[in-house]
């Protein structure tokens, strides 16, 4: 099954559930009909923004890797110099 079909089926199921609740008068139609769905969408958006913010704060960095890389490059250049391979410059 294609992924989009999975997502649409999920949305359909949730909508059907919500409409079912309205029909059975468990939730009274009118003001509330759209209130909860809108709250749901907005909180989904807020959750997304939260995840982006958290991820940004915890973004893993590795400044020491740049230094290690420089060492590796120097080591490799030295090796090739002794083997007569002309690697030139960057």
């Amino acid at each position, binding site marked *: 099954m294609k992924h989009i079909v999975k997502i649409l089926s999920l949305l359909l199921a949730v909508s059907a559930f919500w409409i079912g609740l309205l029909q059975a008068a468990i939730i009274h139609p009118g003001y509330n009909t759209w209130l909860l769905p809108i709250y749901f969408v907005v909180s989904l958006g807020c959750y997304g923004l939260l995840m982006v913010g958290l991820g*940004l704060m915890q973004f893993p960095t590795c400044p020491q890797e740049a230094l290690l890389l420089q060492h590796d490059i120097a080591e*490799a250049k030295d090796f090739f110099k002794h083997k007569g391979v002309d690697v030139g410059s960057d």
Partner: protein
Amino acid sequence: MAEEKERKGDGKHKYSIIVPTYNERLNIALIVYLIFKHLRDVDFEIIVVDDGSPDGTQEIVKQLQHLYGEDRILLRARAKKLGLGTAYIHGLKHATGDFVVIMDADLSHHPKYLPSFIKKQLETNASIVTGTRYVKGGGVHGWNLMRKLTSRGANVLAQTLLWPGVSDLTGSFRLYKKSVLEDVISSCVSKGYVFQMEMIVRATRKGYHIEEVPITFVDRVFGTSKLGGSEIVEYLKGLGYLLLTT
């Protein structure tokens, strides 16, 4: 029998490392040196797919072949720049290993992680082991705040829409079982980094066992290539395409 072959471990495995290059005269030599340094007891071959670099990349590769052996370094060049996806397909045709590693030639992918890829695959018998920059133990160097923000935003969006099963979708440092790569690559049509996304999403959809290892990514080219509006549009189009067709 089959069980005995499993128990023998990596003594029976060969790793074909495909490195597409374009104007990587210096970097290809460095990469080859580092691969040989970190994979001492491993049976591997390096397949350099060069797209007609004008800077003498192929000459350097020939010198490296002289030094390390033509059976360890294969030069399978093409006439001109033909794209990443086709470079992998081209490299695959000449791969004699039962595993294939793909990695970039610009030293953003460090060969020192190759043993951890191999180890992870042997431990879990995964079909694909992909490097991730976004977990603890991994990381990125050379990105400013804006770049990190777009990366994180893009990642959250992709996770929400696609449920890809991996934390780093656009990464291109991966180890594949050769048969798995052949299967997945035949069904991918995108270009550029969307191609990398498509590969991993299609693999997830096909139910392949995918594992991740943390890698560090030192971006030395970011300063020269800006992430502009057109790239963002391309990314969103790619997401939409993957959402609808996978």
